[in-house]
């Protein structure tokens, strides 16, 4: 039961790559090979261009010749249109890779009188296909037949025959059709083409036009179901599969400097995480753009490619202003490391903005992106639109590992934490710039409101814009609260003065101590000297005395012995003598 359909789908999955940027991605490989694809859309939606590019790219990039059957535009006009996409139909025709078959249907010349078939069309197609060995055919737009011929019965039967004939021919066909009221096409062509239907759309919201492509159906193939915005630029179609938002991007561990050393310190020492999204919000004149410029400057110094989307100022204006704070961006532009892309948020629709951004990303492949400011998008559309757009932009950038800095202007009245199109949950690091008013002056201050995954400072710093760039100063927190600006300077001076005073005091005390010590030493010496003298004298006296004493005793003994000798015997003792 299940095996057979699976085999069938495997067969049906053969695809014919269009080469159109983005289209093969959303169709998962291209259009169904050897089958017909219906491209429908309103006037000016880009149907003919899609067909042209399908053939031109097929001929150029895939070596598959093509036949463009034009029921409306003349070959000269088609060639002109193709040139606008960067394709030279004339050259492709000369090298037998593309042929334009113009089928003119002048209703005024045609009159139906009886039964007929469209064998003439078949014969012409056959001849054209054979002339170049075509593998691809575009019928633009076959609906013109409905305008020229009135017999619906015959027409429908012949269209049916045509599509199966094309399938048998082994050509991949694109059929364009005008969009109808309440139906995909005006004449119900979708009934005949059942394999793949693409819808092109150009919608105008708030006077801003956006092109979108949707795959209405694609039998036997997976495909994206969303509306994909697309662009038509000098190199053709660009379909942007950006609605496929996913969260499965890697989170790098590397850091990217904020460009301000002291801010890096506040963010745990190394700066922002690579591929993270940083928002700098603040009221007017708080230095958002300067901080962004520092970030870009730092990036260029590392040799990173930086892309700066300016939504309010012109690049020249930004560079001039940044020169005044010592950031020279021109040299990076000259070296090709920095590219500015200035556009007004209101100039095109949100989708187109994303498309343009994506194109820039693809062309320039930046490491660092700045969007300055995102708040201007709220003016361009509804807050919901702006929010949805930012989510997608953030996703786009993250998926590419690009570190992004948004600036967001907040008005003074609104609580600044609410700023930023409600994208705070999508922001990895949020730096808040505020003006503090104190003592009759305004001082810029900066603090890190959040920084996911890093230990960040929770202190408010004074944010100084000097002519050598931004600098951060610790804020003085004293007994009277936070002091900034002149008050801080004043306090610091006072602190310095009192420090000097105490140092002087210490010196003095040290001197006194020294003096005392010296005096003390002197007195010790004096005492020692006096003592030594006295001791010397005393010792001398003692010796003298002892000497005298010895002499005295001897003398007396001698005297006594002499007396004994004379008195009784010659050997008598002194004791006896004393007795």
């Amino acid at each position: 039961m299940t095996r057979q359909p699976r085999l069938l789908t495997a067969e049906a999955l053969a695809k014919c790559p269009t080469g159109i940027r983005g289209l093969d991605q959303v169709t998962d490989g291209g259009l169904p090979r050897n089958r017909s694809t219906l491209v429908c859309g309103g006037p000016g939606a880009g149907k003919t261009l899609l067909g042209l590019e399908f053939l031109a790219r097929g001929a150029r990039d895939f070596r598959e010749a093509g036949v463009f059957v034009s029921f409306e535009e003349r070959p000269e006009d088609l060639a002109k249109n193709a040139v606008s996409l960067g394709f030279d139909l004339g050259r492709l025709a000369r090298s037998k890779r593309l042929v334009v078959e113009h089928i003119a249907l002048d209703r005024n010349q045609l009159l139906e009188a009886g039964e007929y078939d469209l064998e003439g069309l078949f014969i012409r197609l056959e001849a054209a296909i054979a002339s170049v060995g075509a593998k691809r055919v575009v019928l633009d737009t076959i609906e013109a037949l409905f305008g020229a011929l009135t017999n619906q019965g015959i027409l429908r039967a012949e269209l049916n025959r045509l599509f199966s004939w094309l399938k048998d021919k082994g050509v991949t066909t694109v059929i364009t059709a005008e969009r109808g009221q309440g139906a995909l096409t005006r004449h119900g062509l979708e009934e005949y083409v059942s394999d793949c239907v693409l819808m092109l759309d150009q919608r105008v919201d708030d006077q801003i036009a956006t092109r979108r492509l949707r795959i209405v159906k694609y039998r036997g193939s997976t495909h994206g179901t969303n509306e994909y915005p697309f662009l038509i630029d000098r190199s053709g179609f660009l379909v942007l599969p950006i609605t496929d938002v996913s969260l499965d991007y890697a989170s790098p561990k590397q850091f990217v400097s904020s460009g301000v050393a002291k801010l890096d310190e506040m963010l745990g020492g190394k700066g922002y995480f690579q591929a993270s999204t940083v928002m700098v919000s603040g009221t007017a004149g708080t230095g958002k753009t300067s901080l962004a410029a520092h970030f870009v400057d730092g990036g260029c110094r590392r040799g990173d490619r930086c892309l700066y989307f300016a939504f309010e100022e012109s690049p020249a204006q930004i560079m001039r202003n940044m020169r005044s704070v010592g950031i020279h961006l021109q040299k990076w532009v000259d070296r090709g490391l920095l590219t500015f892309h200035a556009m007004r948020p209101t100039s095109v629709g949100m989708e187109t903005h994303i498309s343009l951004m994506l194109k820039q990303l693809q062309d320039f492949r930046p490491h660092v992106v700045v969007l300055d400011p995102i708040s201007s998008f709220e003016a361009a559309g509804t807050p919901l639109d702006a929010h949805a757009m930012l989510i997608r932009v953030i996703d786009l950038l993250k998926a590419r590992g690009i570190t992004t800095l948004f600036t967001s202007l907040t008005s003074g009245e609104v609580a600044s934490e609410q700023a930023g199109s409600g994208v705070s949950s999508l922001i990895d690091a949020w730096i808040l710039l505020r003006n503090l008013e104190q003592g009759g002056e305004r001082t810029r201050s900066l603090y890190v409101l959040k920084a996911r995954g890093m230990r960040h400072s929770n202190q408010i710093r004074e944010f100084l814009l000097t002519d050598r760039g931004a600098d951060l100063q610790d804020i003085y927190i004293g007994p009277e609260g936070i002091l900034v600006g002149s008050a801080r300077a004043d306090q610091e001076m006072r602190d310095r003065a009192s420090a000097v005073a105490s140092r002087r005091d210490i010196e003095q005390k040290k001197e006194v101590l020294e003096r005392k010590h010296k005096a003390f030493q002197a007195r010790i010496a004096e005492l020692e000297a006096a003592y030594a003298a006295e001791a010397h004298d005393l010792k001398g006296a003692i010796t003298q005395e002892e000497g005298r004493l010895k002499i005295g005793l001897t003398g007396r003994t001698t005297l006594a012995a002499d007396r004994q000798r004379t008195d009784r015997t010659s050997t008598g003792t002194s004791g006896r003598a004393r007795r």
Partner: protein
Amino acid sequence: MKRAASTKKKVTRASARKAASPRPQRNRASAATDYDLVLFISGASERSRVALANIKVIANEHLKGRYRLSVVDLYQQPQRAREHEIIAVPTLVRRLPAPLRRLVGDLSDGDRVMIGLDIVPKSRNG
């Protein structure tokens, strides 16, 4: 309407002679031709046969001696389809009198053929 058609006939006769050039000619009826008709067919199909028969009948009835009819088989000469801007088959092209007209179909709807070729029926004409 009738008057306009007849004056047109007169005006274009002169200019048509000037523009005369070699053409596929099989059923040349006479040298003085008001009507230059080419029938494009696809091989020996039923419709082709019917169309050829129909135009012969109508032409012989209303344009006797004033027309020439050539038949092109697109299967034999496919390049002619492009040259003459043919989509539907059979197609009868009225090259003269100007303006160029294309009649699509097997020409079984006689009234429409008459209208398409600007033929004024004899009965009404008289």
